[in-house]
């Protein structure tokens, strides 16, 4: 495979055993037979190995972590990044939910307020009817505040009472 890596016509010959250790490790030297058995400079070998690290690893069924070339650091692959960061998507979802909630509550509040106004008008009118004919004396303070301007609406209010249903 070193031959394929360097694209030259090189034969692999003698394997010399030396410095036997307990671990599986070896030194190797690449010679160029076409140039009268000179060793190929280390930098070229290093570059070749760097290029074909994958193939060398798979030949041994190992990986970058289990087959280490001293002094050759592997080019790290960057972590996969999706085009839109995931957090932006999640953020968008959360924000939409919240805005929907706020809009719903505000609108419900406005509607509730309208309904409250009508029902308190109705309540106060019923109260007035129960107390006495002379309504002006017994008008409670809240009614006065809410119905500012509608004090003498007793007769017109009769219609209101029915239509508001």
């Amino acid at each position, binding site marked *: 495979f070193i031959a394929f890596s360097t694209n030259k016509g090189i034969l692999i010959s003698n394997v010399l055993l030396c410095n036997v*250790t*307990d*671990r599986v*490790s070896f030194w190797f030297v690449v010679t160029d037979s076409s140039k009268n058995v000179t060793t190929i400079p280390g930098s070229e070998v290093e570059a070749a190995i760097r290029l074909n690290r994958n193939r060398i690893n798979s030949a041994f069924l190992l990986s970058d972590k289990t087959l280490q070339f001293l002094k050759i*650091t592997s*080019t*790290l692959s*960057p*972590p996969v990044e999706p085009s839109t960061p*995931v*957090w932006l998507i*999640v*953020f968008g979802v*959360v*924000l939409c939910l*919240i*805005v929907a*909630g*706020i809009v719903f*509550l*505000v609108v419900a*509040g406005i509607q509730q*307020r309208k309904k409250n106004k009508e029902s308190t008008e109705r309540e106060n009118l019923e109260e007035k009817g129960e107390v006495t004919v002379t309504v002006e004396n017994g008008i*409670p303070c809240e009614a006065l505040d809410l119905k500012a301007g509608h004090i003498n609406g007793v007769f017109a209010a009769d219609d209101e009472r029915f239509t508001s249903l």
Partner: protein
Amino acid sequence: MSKDLSVPPEIPKEDGRPKWDNKFQYILSCIGFAVGLGNVWRFPYLCQIHGGGAFLIPYFIALLFEGIPLLHLELALGQCLRKGSIGAWNTISPYLGGVGVGSWMVSVLVSLYYNTVLTWVMWYFINSFQEPLPWSVCPLNENRTGLNEECYESTAVNYFWYRKTLNITPDVTESGTLQWWLILCLATCWAIVYLCTIRGIETTGKAIYVTAIFPYLVLTVFLIHGLTLPGATDGLAYLFTPNLNTLKNPRVWLDAATQIFFSLSLAFGGLIAFSSYNPPKNDCEKDAVTVAVVNSMTSLYASIPVFSVLGFKATTGYWDCLDRNIISIINEFDLPEESIMRQNYTAWINFLNSSYPEKIAGLKLKSCDFQEFLDQSVSGTGLAFITFTQAIILMPGSQAWAILFFIMLFSLGLSSMFGNIEGVFTPLLELQSISKSIPKELLSGIICLICFLIALCFTLGSGSYWIDIFDSYAGSLPLLVIAFFEVIGVAYVYKIKRFSKDVKWMTGRKPNLYWQITWRFISPLLLLIVFVAFVTLQIQKPPSYTAWNPKYEGFPMKEEKVYPPWVLAICVLLVVLPCVFVPLVALFHLIKRMRRSKDPSLVPPEVFSCQGASSNFSHPKE
């Protein structure tokens, strides 16, 4: 229409004052307000550094003599007077009106920075949906030959927190730029707060069911999972082993007192606001004891999963340290794989050290001490965003754990925010001028918007330094001052006899000797001692902070720096601003009284009582 005292249930309705849907909502709101982030990341830390189980002794003593009496006082006050903090203190005595304004001011300041902490939680939450988790890997440097340098020298978790989240500047004076991702999260957080507090307790009452109960569920899940992790028992043993010698150190007692005080969220005005929506005849004594006990129990309950996880992290850290050393040794001596395992590591090291000491020394092995890993105590944001996230990476299924953890933190903080916002909202609602012209929804919207705009300062590069400043100065000393005046005001201005009568009217029984003694003597004395001790400790050394500076020689250790004078001035301002209202308002009324000495309306309201409050429609005018 005569106000009959025998028909109290109808009175709140005609009062026009909103009320809780049921008692459980009220209790849950108080518990949610009290139980916050501090229960998870401050109490376990204090237990750890102050001798484990021994810390519980000063803690419970402080709870008994400071926490519960003050809590009962505030709840009874709000329930009796049925007004927020400003109105309540004005009613007790116009001279004490400043106490209410001070509470309000503190609630405003705390709301500002507390939500920014929630912003950070939210940022981590929305980043937890990725595989792998972004804080588990270091990004590559420019030419893709290695890891980013800042990340490599510290850890990936540190890098994600300081660079990717805060984008922190090396100094508090360098403001840096606004971080747009934090602004988005801040806007979201304030939108959530607005959504939940839009109509005051009508909406928070519904939201509290989720935000107050959910954290307990998650804590239980973490408890069960944490106890199954390796090293959990070591962490727990380390946490709870009592070391009674630490009790000799007065610092421990001070920390216990301050922890109880700040944990129960006293003197914010939020508790007064919550109880003011109660029907007048409600057993506030039982409520106070319940809330205080639940708060303390939650602190204890939360410390168990926290310390199981920390024990697990220490164990894995220790194993990693051993493994790294083993690899270096194996490489150096060309030994076969698996010849040195963790178990026989010490035997091997001793053997090799005696046979080849120079080689071993040349390897520069790090000494792996398990105790040292356990001793790395962290509290506050460091615990949540650095230590815990690191532990989560090591668990299988980390995304799920991260999501759960951050939702739990968010709920804890949110329920405390409700109390803070209520403390701001309720007194404003009671100002006649505002409540007539603006609907509730608009008022809460304005409050949230103004707070959001001011809190943008915390999204600057130096934001986290400022949050530390706010937390240490605005959220500590003024509260002690205000609480002291609260107790003195009720005990000696309003008079305990009258207060006891009011409490008897509300709960049906006279407060017993325990309450009398604590309200009159013990609690004020304790508060005074804590205040003096606190101030003494603060002024002993110039206030400093630790900065994250990649260019520092000791990096990744943080650089210790001193605050410049203008920052110190702001710190002093933060402390003084809420407290200054107490004497200012008193002085204002004194001057007013001296000018119109014939005016009887400025005499302390002898005629006022709880029975009177419930039958009184008109708010006493100034």
